[in-house]
């Protein structure tokens, strides 16, 4: 069984590039060049150097002793929260800005949910002196104010998406519209493993540095490259794709993808795509998505802006369909409590997205000698107001 992408741009039956003709030249140019460019030694060198000197990689693999003790298993945290800008998102934006430069693009657009991808994009645009426009749902602008402020400081223009649920899905629509209108000079930096091929694969490859590092870091600490479990939350799925990447074909390593159940999977306010979704097309990709019988995309809900998305990337649709990954759903309340717990047990305030991954320990028991790696996809600075309000601290 193959879990990674095939030469046609599909993960099993999922993927492809269901795009309007207006996007074809851009997407095709990217498709034809991305692997070639990524393989160029000068690209690799610049990418690696920026990840090291600018982003601060490798991110540590940290044995969380007090958390491990509490749940009687061995929990390692992959510290993507320590990356420059505070989440895994920057691994991808560094890669894509270098890609955009090599494709001769001068203007960058992006969508963002939690704002982490927007900040990471604004950051690399400042670094390279490129114009940057970030689309962000009006609701997300309100609930992730610190990240909006950061984007502005970095010189990016933040454009509110006012349609639909005014969250990530709609910001993505707006970004695609912008790209359609600016097909020559503009590169669209998609922030997750979603969108038309080759985006899911390209983003996964940029994020794959996460599992590449886990392998040698775990070897150093435990004498094996293989954990028993790798756990990651799934909005679009990029942090999970990165954490799973080098383990995809090795089924001795179990993969757990954690989705946002919002106020409860069947409450009508949820973003648990694997349970609630069906096959269909969203943002240029054939995948699982939440939709009406009629094929209208449903407005999702999660307290976490980064998981508040009605689809998942095609890789994850495939991992779900094949059973390669176990999918779990975590409610707002469970996530918030897990976020507080990590803060007070380990001194690490996680992003609310990440808190979903941390909440699985109340649902699933692990063996004392299991090695469980949680991809700590981001820090919670952007979520402080939400935590404070929620817990009335």
């Amino acid at each position, binding site marked *: 069984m193959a879990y990674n992408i095939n030469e046609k741009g599909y993960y099993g039956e999922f993927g*492809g*590039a*269901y*795009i*309007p*003709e*207006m996007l*074809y*030249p851009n997407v095709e140019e990217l498709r034809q060049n991305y692997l070639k460019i990524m393989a160029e030694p000068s690209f690799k060198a610049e990418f690696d150097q920026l990840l090291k000197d600018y982003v601060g990689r490798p991110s540590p693999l940290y044995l969380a002793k007090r958390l491990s003790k509490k749940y009687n298993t061995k929990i390692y945290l992959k510290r993507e929260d320590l990356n420059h800008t505070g989440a895994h998102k920057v691994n991808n934006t560094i890669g894509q800005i270098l890609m955009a430069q090599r494709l001769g693009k001068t203007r960058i657009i992006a969508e963002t949910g939690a704002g982490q991808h927007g900040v990471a994009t604004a950051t690399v645009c400042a670094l390279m002196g490129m114009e940057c426009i970030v689309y962000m749902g009006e609701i997300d602008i309100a609930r992730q104010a610190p990240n909006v402020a950061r984007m502005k400081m970095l010189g990016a223009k933040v454009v509110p998406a006012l*349609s*639909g649920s005014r969250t990530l*899905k*709609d910001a993505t*629509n707006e970004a*695609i*519209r912008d790209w*359609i*209108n*600016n*097909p*020559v000079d503009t590169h669209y930096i998609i922030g997750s493993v979603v969108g038309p091929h080759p985006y899911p694969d390209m983003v996964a490859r940029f994020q794959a540095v996460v599992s590449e590092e886990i392998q040698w870091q775990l070897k150093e600490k435990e004498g094996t490259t293989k954990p028993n479990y790798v756990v990651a939350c799934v909005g679009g799925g990029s942090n999970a794709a990165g954490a799973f990447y080098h383990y995809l074909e090795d089924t001795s390593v179990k993969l757990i993808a954690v989705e946002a159940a919002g106020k409860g999977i069947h409450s009508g306010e949820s973003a648990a795509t694997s349970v609630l979704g*069906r*096959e*269909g*097309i*969203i*943002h*240029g990709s054939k995948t699982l998505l939440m*939709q009406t*019988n*009629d*094929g*209208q*995309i449903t407005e999702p809900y999660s307290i976490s802006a980064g998981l508040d998305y009605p689809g998942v990337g095609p890789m994850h649709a495939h991992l779900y369909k094949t059973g390669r990954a176990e999918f779990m759903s975590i409610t707002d309340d469970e996530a918030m409590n897990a976020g507080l717990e990590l803060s007070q047990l380990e001194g690490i305030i996680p992003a609310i997205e990440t808190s979903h991954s941390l909440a699985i320990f109340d649902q699933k028991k692990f063996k004392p000698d299991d090695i469980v790696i949680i991809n700590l996809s981001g820090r919670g600075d952007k979520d402080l107001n939400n935590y404070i309000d929620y817990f009335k601290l």
Partner: protein
Amino acid sequence: MNRINKKLQEDKKLLSIYFSAGYPNLNDTASIIQKLEESGVDMIEIGLPFSDPLADGPTIQESSTQALKNGMTTNLLFNQLATIRETVTIPLIIMGYFNPMLQYGVEAFCKKCKETGIDGLIIPDLPVDVYNEQYKSIFEKHGLINVFLITPQTRIERINFIDSISNGFIYMVSSASVTGSKSGFGDEQTNYFERISKMNLSNPQIVGFGISNNETFTQATKHAKGAIIGSAFIKHLTKNGVTNIDFFINKITSIRKSKFKKA
């Protein structure tokens, strides 16, 4: 012969109108179609509303959203159109995004189109190769013409390929942009229209995006077989409802008559 092909043989510049089904009111669909035919329009694109119409500008997007709020569904559209062929003979095209059709079932959807008297489909996010490999035979089996888009950025080889698998017309996007976003055409567009015209494709071209009045219609159809008006017509509907449609259309066709008679 498919009504579209027949229409394309007529010796005039064609005016095609787009509107979102279920807008402004849920059950306006049939009467808008009838009034458009009465006004002398040549072809109609009936928009099947979608929640996330990523190739559309704000005007069409909002009309889609409103149509969905009004209760528009795929089934309902087919119901509204069930007896349309009793009253109109104009070529009818459904334009919509792929996901609702996929959920309906592509084969079922095509079958229903045929039964209803729909002549063709425009599906902006159904890629040429996916169509060609997976759906072409189904479309053909039901006598449906599938219309592909080209843009100023589309390469010659690709245009030729699209021409080779088309059997109606080519939807020539005036400029790379979502619907409704530019006003008036500059040299760039004119050169593009001329360039495509000189390719002598086997399918005629109809221009869409950015046509809002007689001036842009005239420019667009100088080198092309026809042009499609979308956002401008939706704006008319927003303002006037289903009234005065002939007035809106006449502003364009009167010019067409006076101008192109000479040609």
